């Protein structure tokens, strides 16, 4: 077996502003977050913000890049010197009722002491056929130079305002083989 459930966070009450995975075990090769999430912010879409990778409540020196499709066009973007890594776009308070965005976020070699921790995410949702120009299908990359080559021990997830009830994040550990096949 290669994929092990580590922890799950489900939003069951209004006003939850942060989802936190603390003391992440360092016994796997890779991490994967699988999410169905929505923001309560008064907008059509919101961002998934990742930070606090050392568990010291410091959010700084992040870079991220993305491409998105709206259904009628494609957009790209890049940011450096940010507090967080944006790892996806999700529906928010003005999206269609009961619509949640899906995301799969990979962090390879998260316990390495020689690599920066590159984050890759694919996320998306459909707003009941709306053509409001939102970033419905997305691919993101990012990393934190504040974390640098230190092992990643914590992940905090934020949105603008708070998460909608029903939001769920599952954290998995992924193992690799000790056989090379060379």
């Amino acid at each position: 077996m290669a994929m092990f459930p580590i922890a799950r966070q489900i939003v069951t009450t209004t006003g939850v502003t942060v989802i936190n995975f603390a003391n992440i075990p360092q016994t796997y090769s890779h991490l994967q977050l699988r999410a169905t999430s929505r923001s309560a912010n008064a907008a059509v879409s919101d961002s998934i913000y990742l930070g606090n990778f050392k568990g010291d409540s410091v959010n700084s020196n992040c870079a991220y890049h993305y491409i998105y499709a709206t259904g009628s066009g494609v957009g790209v973007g890049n940011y450096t010197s940010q507090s967080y890594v944006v790892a996806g776009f999700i529906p928010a308070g003005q999206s269609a009722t009961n619509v949640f965005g899906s995301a799969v976020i990979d962090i390879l070699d998260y316990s390495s002491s020689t690599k920066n921790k590159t984050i890759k995410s694919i996320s998306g949702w459909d707003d009941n056929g709306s053509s409001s120009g939102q970033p419905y299908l997305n691919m993101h990359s990012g990393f934190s130079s504040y974390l640098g080559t230190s092992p990643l021990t914590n992940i905090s997830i934020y949105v603008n305002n708070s998460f909608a009830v029903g939001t769920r994040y599952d954290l998995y550990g992924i193992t690799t083989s000790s056989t090379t096949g060379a």
Partner: protein
Amino acid sequence: MAYALVPIFTQTVTSGTIGNIVFSNIPSTYRDLKVVISARASNNAQGTGYNQVGFYLNSTSYPANATWRRLFANGSSSLSDNTSGFGNAGPLSDSSQTANTFGITELYIPNYTSTNFKQMIAHGVNENNAAAAGMSFSANLYRITEPITSIKFDTSNGGFVIGSTFSLYGIKAS
């Protein structure tokens, strides 16, 4: 309990720079294959479309049978293109990008033991503490009908540096 995702092989570059990575004698006991790559190239390809992880099924004598197309972005613009001669597993970081930063990609190979042509998809990113960083989705076709027993990976520019890892998984079906 039967598990669906099974680690088969992992190779890590532990010294020097390696020109290619090969998985040989891949067992035929799974339904699909998945390859997870964390890699960085030794050379600088910034501004030339960025380095890609190329892959070759069974033998390098088949490049004429390989074609791919992709959606690619570099942080400031996007494009869709296509070419032939090798498979495209996605971008990797290179020496022009932030030190110690590696690109990560995933290659999915369904029905690898079938006698049909092999269709595959890949998605990956590299990262950089600057405006430019590559990311892509690609669809790949290898027009070969024999089961896949080996996969070779290389890079279009330089070799793989220390810390690059390639992990092969088998996916079981019910």
